[in-house]
């Protein structure tokens, strides 16, 4: 009975908190763990943390950093992290099917006019004629694991060009970069700040844009555990509100560039704390600016893209056919766009 009451109360408070006029945090001192990668695509969370948007919502956030997207999904399912922001992976879908995780919002998106993810070729492969994605037939394409976003991108690019790349699972982004630089694999696709960094150093060649093959690709999503969705909605709503404010700041500063130079520089400095922290600011700045991609306003979710990804997972036999959109996504938190 008491739990029912508390949950009920929380959801009331959560609902009340959505009123814009309410001035005080509804969930004072709630501790949450947020999974993140050291990528600019996680900037919205970093901004929300640094600028106190999480505190404003009464969320005491601690980041948990991961090396790849899939372990983050497992951490959310196991309760070691409350929220994750990362690509939809086969692991995430499987965990959703087991009732352990749910997508509740969208984050990074490919958008026409904004420089998005790049398709890369190794220098050796480029010299041997891999100068456009049309030449990927039979070429080795680096992926972290089967069912990762890299796998999805490579597969979609191949389908669009009518070619079949050979996918090489290498577990970690670092391993893929190493293999691409040394010519052990031929091609890869990755977010622009990494792609441009590598190409700028002459280590690889950029041969195309992911957005030409997967327009409006919903690259990363916000997800949480099923327990929070069903029993702690207020927490999720508070997180998404703070996350959206962070996204707005980020988009204004680096994507739309409407906030002015000072704001942009301040944003670069803020992100530098988390991304390329081991490089001097001058060097990191270019990569951070280059890597700016749209983080959806209000954490809106592109359902059409999610549907396409889900269908791809099914067609590849990576997840069970029985999984529906409803199993994967709870659309009640954010605006759904198509």
């Amino acid at each position, binding site marked *: 009975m008491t739990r029912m009451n508390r949950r009920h109360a929380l959801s009331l408070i959560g609902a009340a908190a959505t009123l814009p006029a309410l001035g005080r945090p509804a969930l004072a001192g709630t501790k949450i763990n947020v999974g993140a990668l050291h990528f600019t695509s996680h900037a919205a969370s970093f901004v929300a943390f640094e600028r106190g948007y999480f505190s404003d919502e009464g969320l005491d956030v601690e980041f948990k950093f991961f090396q790849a997207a899939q372990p983050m999904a497992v951490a959310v399912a196991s309760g070691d992290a409350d929220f994750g922001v990362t690509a939809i*992976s086969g692991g995430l879908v*499987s965990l959703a099917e087991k009732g352990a995780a749910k997508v509740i919002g969208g984050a990074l998106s490919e958008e026409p006019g904004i420089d998005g993810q790049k398709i890369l070729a190794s220098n050796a492969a480029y010299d041997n004629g891999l100068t456009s994605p049309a030449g990927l037939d039979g070429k*080795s394409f680096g992926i972290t694991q*089967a*069912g990762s976003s890299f796998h999805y991108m490579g597969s979609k690019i191949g389908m669009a060009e009518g070619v079949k790349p050979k*996918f090489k*699972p290498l577990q970690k982004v670092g391993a893929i970069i190493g293999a691409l630089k040394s010519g052990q694999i031929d091609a890869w696709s990755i977010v622009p700040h990494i792609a441009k960094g590598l190409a700028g150093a002459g280590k690889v060649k950029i041969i195309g844009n992911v957005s030409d093959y997967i327009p409006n690709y919903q690259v990363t999503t916000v997800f949480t555990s099923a327990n929070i969705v069903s029993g702690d909605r207020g927490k999720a709503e508070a997180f998404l509100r703070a996350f959206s404010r962070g996204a707005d700041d980020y988009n204004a500063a680096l994507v739309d560039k409407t906030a002015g130079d000072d704001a942009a520089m301040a944003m670069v400095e803020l992100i530098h704390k988390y991304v390329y922290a081991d490089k001097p600011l001058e060097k990191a700045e270019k990569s951070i600016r280059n890597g700016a991609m749209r983080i959806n306003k209000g954490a809106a979710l592109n359902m059409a893209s999610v549907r396409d990804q889900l269908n791809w997972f099914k067609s590849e036999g990576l*997840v069970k056919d029985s999984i529906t959109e409803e199993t994967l996504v709870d659309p009640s938190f954010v605006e759904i766009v198509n």
Partner: protein
Amino acid sequence: MADDLSAPKTTMPKTRMQVSEARPVRFRGGGFRPARRRWLGPLVFVVLIALAEWGTRSGWIGNLTLPRPSDVASTLWEMALSGRLWLHLAPSLTRLFVGATLGVSAGIAVGLLIGLFTYARAALVPLVAALFPIPKIALLPLFVIWFGIDEMSKYALIAFGTFTPTVVATYGAVDNVDRTLIRMGQSFGLSWHSIVRKIVLPGAMPGILSGLRISLAIAVILLVAAEMLGAEYGIGAFILEAGSLYDLERLFAGVTILSLLGVTISFALGLVEAKLLNWRS
């Protein structure tokens, strides 16, 4: 009174021991000799699997914790029917065979050198001791640079992993060959070659074969590691994929295959031992 004087009693040696005090000697032997109980091993498996099946069906084991054994079995069955089992098994068996053959034969050769030649021993034993504890998995990225991302680096990893334990087992086994047999060979004027081939090698065979048990188990473990980098098909790649997809049924199906592979290898080695070492008393 007359009874007390009767003859038999007086001729008996005097003893204070009363008949009523006679008792059997307390048994204190036994134990320390494991007997064979063939049924117990399989029984443990059956009980554990039954427990998991019942637990997952009744719900006190969550579907995130363990897959249902019957689902794992049906996953395996479907894999076998669809041919996917063979698709994954064939490259793994090839890697295992090629890698282990390379590593074991090089290991036996180097182990023999160490066992037979003073200089080889002095030069190589420290090197082998230094190589042994290196987790071969840590060298995988290096092997990829050296041997390429395709099959060669996988062969190399398994070969390297089986090499060092085979070396150690082999030279230990050569050291343990009965020296009087070697002296006998010399006393009959057998050539160095014949002594190595007809006395040292067969004499070292028990040690080499028991080293092989360890080496081949390591080969199976390294198979999964080898398939971490750039393998599309293979039991290891299949397990890693299932793990990243959080598909527990396939994960356990893969693990079951590996485990069966280990049992099969162990059984085959047992047969080889029974055949080759029938001379052991």
